[in-house]
């Protein structure tokens, strides 16, 4: 997987590049709009991450230029603006997703992987597997080591979300918006309660723990 980062802030470009490399991407970095168009036109990338505020040519123009050249690399837009209008403008210029700064790297990675999945047109799997944990998307049944596990709908939704992003740390905010479709920050520990109930069912009866808490960041499902 090749990823292109078009971002003029060194620190942000640095940590995004490092994180993506750890996740198995080959990463190229450029720091201005012209170079971004050049790089994306010169070779095919599986995904591009483009900042909106760039020197020489702003991010939205970069995306428009690429789309005009029929380059269909999926683009994740990074922006410091969070208004709905900005989001809409970003998607209208040809971007595929929009992420507001500051962001959790986990969220960026999840979105990047979703973009790659969507564009690679790999047929949607009917089962998700992590180690001996298997989730059947069609029958909505979950087994671990062949033993059936009975999950309530929200628990199933959370597990599906974690298994679609194996190895990716997902934050509480991400879980809240994916599992409940609520976009706000509750003060109570709604997410912790759900996670601990899920852990109770998929991890506690087994020796190997799959669902881990990353303090300060979120949760991750990994072998």
């Amino acid at each position, binding site marked *: 997987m090749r990823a292109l980062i078009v971002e003029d802030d060194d620190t942000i470009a640095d940590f995004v590049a490092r994180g993506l490399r750890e996740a198995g991407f080959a990463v190229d970095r450029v720091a201005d709009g012209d170079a971004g168009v050049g790089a994306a036109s010169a070779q095919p990338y599986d995904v591009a991450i483009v900042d909106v505020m760039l020197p020489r040519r702003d991010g939205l123009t970069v995306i428009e230029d690429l789309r005009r050249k029929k380059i269909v690399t999926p683009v994740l837009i990074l922006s410091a603006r*969070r208004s709905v209008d900005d989001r809409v403008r970003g998607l209208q210029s040809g971007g595929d997703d929009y992420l507001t700064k500051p962001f959790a790297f986990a969220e960026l990675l999840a979105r990047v992987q979703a973009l790659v999945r969507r564009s690679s047109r790999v047929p949607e799997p009917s089962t998700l597997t992590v180690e001996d944990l298997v989730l059947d998307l069609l029958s909505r049944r979950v087994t671990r080591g062949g033993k059936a596990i009975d999950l309530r709908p929200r628990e199933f939704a959370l597990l599906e979300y974690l298994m679609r992003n194996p190895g990716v740390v997902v934050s509480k*905010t991400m879980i809240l918006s994916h599992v409940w479709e*609520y976009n*706000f920050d*509750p*003060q*109570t*520990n709604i997410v912790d*309660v759900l996670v601990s109930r899920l852990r109770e069912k998929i991890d506690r009866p087994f020796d190997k723990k799959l669902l881990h808490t990353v303090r300060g960041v979120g949760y991750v499902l990994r072998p």
Partner: protein
Amino acid sequence: MSSGRNTFGLRIALWYATLFVGGAVAIVFLTYYLLSVSLVQRDQQLIRAKLGDYAAAYARAGARGLAAVVQSEQAVTPERLFVRVVDRGVESLVLSNPEGWDPQKLETVTAQLADGTVVQVGKSTEAREDLLARFRAALGFVTLLVIGIALTGGWLATQSAIFPIRRLTHTVNSIIRTGRTDARVPIEGATGDAIDELTLLFNAMLDKIEGLVSAMRGALDNVSHDLRTPLARLRGTAELALAGPANVDRYRDALAVCVEETDRVLVMLNTLMDISEAESGTLPLTREPVALAEIVSRVVELYKDVADAQQVELQSGGSLPADLKVDGDRTRLEQVAANLVDNAVKYTPAGGRVEISIGREADRAFFRVADTGPGIPSDELPRIWDRLFRGDASRAERGLGLGLSLVKAIVEAHGGTVSVDSQRGAGATFTVWLPILSPM
């Protein structure tokens, strides 16, 4: 700038003067034309009448008889006519040709009798031309007068019409120069005309801008003030970790705290922005008919597990009428409900109960969250909606002190109100009132 304004006034004045003068000149020409036409017609009628008389006299008594009639008549009339008889041949007989008459200035009518004789009667046009000439002079004078009045009047009228605009320009200039938005355009002797309306609108716009600017200043003050605390914690944690002995576990802990604090700063920033946008009326609301019953069931679903874990009974009370709808932004209203339920669940001790109910009173729908928690002391009640106010009881809990401010700001942006009823030890009841959406 100033010459531009004067040119504008002059242009309007000239424009009006041209229209006015054009109209006046058209009327003058029409009058003149009608007068001259009617004078010609009158002369012709007179001549025709005489011609009839003379033709009859000629037929009765021949040329001689006619000459006698003409002579006797023309001798006594003040306005003498030209009369001539032409025989079948070429011989013409002038019966009357008043001295000094120029044949060129004759209005004549000719009649041919049965025997081929031609009788011609003419009348001098001199008197008529004279009258018309005097009339032309008078009209010319009147036209000049009209042009003068039009220019002066137009100028004066334009000046008085432009004066309020100048006042407006002056105010705008002073605002641009000084940056003070508290200046207002004075209104004198309001007549309710278009200019007064513009002035009123302009002042209203200034009020709105001033409100926005001060809301933004307020938000900025709040942000800079309230970010200091979490930033201080952030810095302190990092500094402490760096100052201590190198130890991976300590570092990991410190970094985790830093990430958590950063998230908290971000949430605070977003919430403060939401509040000030909602308060200043710039928060975009995607309005649609929203059934309150759906909001209740969603929020109950969201908090069911947390309430279970805290051994708090969370339930929707009474009936949930499915047709009770309000016009609002679904996500924002869910946020309001979630914030209220979040608070209620958080403060209600194990064994307590949180009850959510909806209903209507007159033209308002309500959404109510009642808990059996410790209640709010009466001296804190008026301040709970303030930004970042945290009561004694809430300081121990995790939170920003922004939840209720956000609730109030969002509800008020929807044209609703919030109220609270609580006594120490007797729980708290929060009610959101929203304008009901009347069924179509």
